[in-house]
């Protein structure tokens, strides 16, 4: 390696600042105001100033997102990344930040996300924001494709057919998420629910009922990443990146070869190998719960259980509070918040757990966290392994 270039893993890079903006429904902030507020709070959390930031990473589906944010904040970055991989992007950015820092291209990376999805819901349709030249516009939308819901439904139906996964097992994920949300004062939905409540909620697209689907909210978040040396003098104890992995297998659901096996298999394999740990070592999991099924599929593909056994795995409260594999401890996208993309909130919650800041939902002695972001239509997968 050239002088100045280091291994990006193995505790050489750390997350040192995190914050949400304000999440909820009807939050009166524009997407840029969400990012400004979250950036300010995350830098304050780190004990860093705006002038310390020399890299900005964010994304959106339109425009020049990193320039939009950098200019709004008055930052002239020497490194930016706007990788558009859907909701996983903010997990990918932690890896990109580590690479850029390890290569000496920048030192303090600010990752932001902000959305007024809930407040804008009457003004924007998701498909209107997508490129009308993408192949789905010709070969999926005319059929009443309803992605992401329909893509994930098609995968869930195939999984149920091949492995006998049941609606009750899907519902277990929603129940676990709600039990965590009941311990999180900031969660949007905090009323207790049962498996029956999920199954009796309105059918949206089989097998998904309303309570199998993530929320729609407003919100934003920011994460600050820097080198281990710089982290030493900062306000909070650093959370180190031990390993990361990424895989993109397709864009449109018609091009996904086997709907029961996702790119999480590959991204997880990479992350575990780089971190030199195994699923057994993980204390807490934060994985993208766009739908209940997303969690079951991720559990299998990340190696927490065998292929086809994800449904049984989530039974009996295993992933809920007090269970043996605490998962989505904030309440996740199903119960806490989901302003269009969840990635950054997965990272924030994992850092909070590893810092021991989670109060009544704290996983005792959490040392090692796995973060898994999913983007598009089961298209992109990004895995991080973080340690305190």
């Amino acid at each position, binding site marked *: 390696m050239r002088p100045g270039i280091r291994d990006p893993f193995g505790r050489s890079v750390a997350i040192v600042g995190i914050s949400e903006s304000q999440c909820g429904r009807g939050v009166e902030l524009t997407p840029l105001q969400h990012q400004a507020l979250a950036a300010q709070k995350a830098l304050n959390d780190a004990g860093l100033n705006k002038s310390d930031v020399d890299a900005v990473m964010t994304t959106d589906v339109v425009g020049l997102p990193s320039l939009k944010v950098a200019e709004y904040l008055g930052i002239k970055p020497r490194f930016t990344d706007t990788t558009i991989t859907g909701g996983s992007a903010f997990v990918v950015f932690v890896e990109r930040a580590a690479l850029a820092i390890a290569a000496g291209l920048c030192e303090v990376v600010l990752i932001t996300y902000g959305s007024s999805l809930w407040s804008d819901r009457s003004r924007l*349709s998701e498909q209107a924001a997508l490129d009308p030249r993408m192949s789905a516009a010709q070969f999926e939308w*005319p*059929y009443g494709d309803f992605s992401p819901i329909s893509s994930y439904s098609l*995968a869930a139906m195939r999984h149920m057919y091949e492995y006998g996964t049941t609606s009750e097992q899907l519902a277990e994920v929603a129940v676990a998420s709600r039990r965590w949300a009941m311990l999180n004062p900031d969660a949007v939905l905090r009323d207790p629910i049962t498996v029956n409540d999920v199954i009796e909620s309105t059918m949206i*697209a089989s097998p998904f009922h309303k309570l199998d689907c993530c929320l729609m909210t407003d919100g934003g978040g920011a994460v600050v990443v820097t080198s281990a040396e710089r982290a030493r003098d900062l306000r909070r104890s650093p959370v180190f990146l031990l390993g990361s992995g990424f895989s993109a297998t397709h864009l449109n659901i*018609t091009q996904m070869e086997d709907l029961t096996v996702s790119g999480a298999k590959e991204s997880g394999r990479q992350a575990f190998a780089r971190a030199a740990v195994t699923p057994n070592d993980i204390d807490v999991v934060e994985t993208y719960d766009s739908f209940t099924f997303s969690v079951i599929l991720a559990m299998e593909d990340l190696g927490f259980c065998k292929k086809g056994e994800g449904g049984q795995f989530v039974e009996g409260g295993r992933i809920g509070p007090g269970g043996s594999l605490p998962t989505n401890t904030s309440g996740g996208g199903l119960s806490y918040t989901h302003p269009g993309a969840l990635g950054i909130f997965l990272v924030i919650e994992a850092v909070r757990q590893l810092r021991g800041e989670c109060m009544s939902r704290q996983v005792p002695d959490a040392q090692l966290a796995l973060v898994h972001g999913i983007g598009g239509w089961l298209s992109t997968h990004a895995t991080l392994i973080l340690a305190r």
Partner: protein
Amino acid sequence: MSEKRPLPIPDLDSAVYWEAAHRREFLLQRCVSCERFRFYPRSICPYCFSEAFEWKRLSGQGTLYSYTVIHKPPSPAFRDKVPFILALIDLAEGVRMMSNILECEPNSVEIGMPVEIVFEDVADKITLPQFRPLQP
């Protein structure tokens, strides 16, 4: 949100496909080099990268790989269609595509069922390839 059903806008890759569908013909590209069919139409083979292809007529038969019954209309245009079946079809020629399953009650659709093509005119010049349960 538009009241109109989203319609395909044919492009340089897909014009032949949509023109054929409008004539009630089901054509897809087959690579001249590796002889594999591909879906959706594109200028290069995603398996062997050859640019040589020919449009071939398909049997119009396949099996249902997966489906979902859509209950909540994706847009106002689908309000009077729900519940409807959105499916992935494995065509006999080895490629997969999305379609609706017409002429089939949502509670009698099954993964693995044999299906066959039908054509649905949805606009002046636009005809969608659709599928229905294989008729005896």
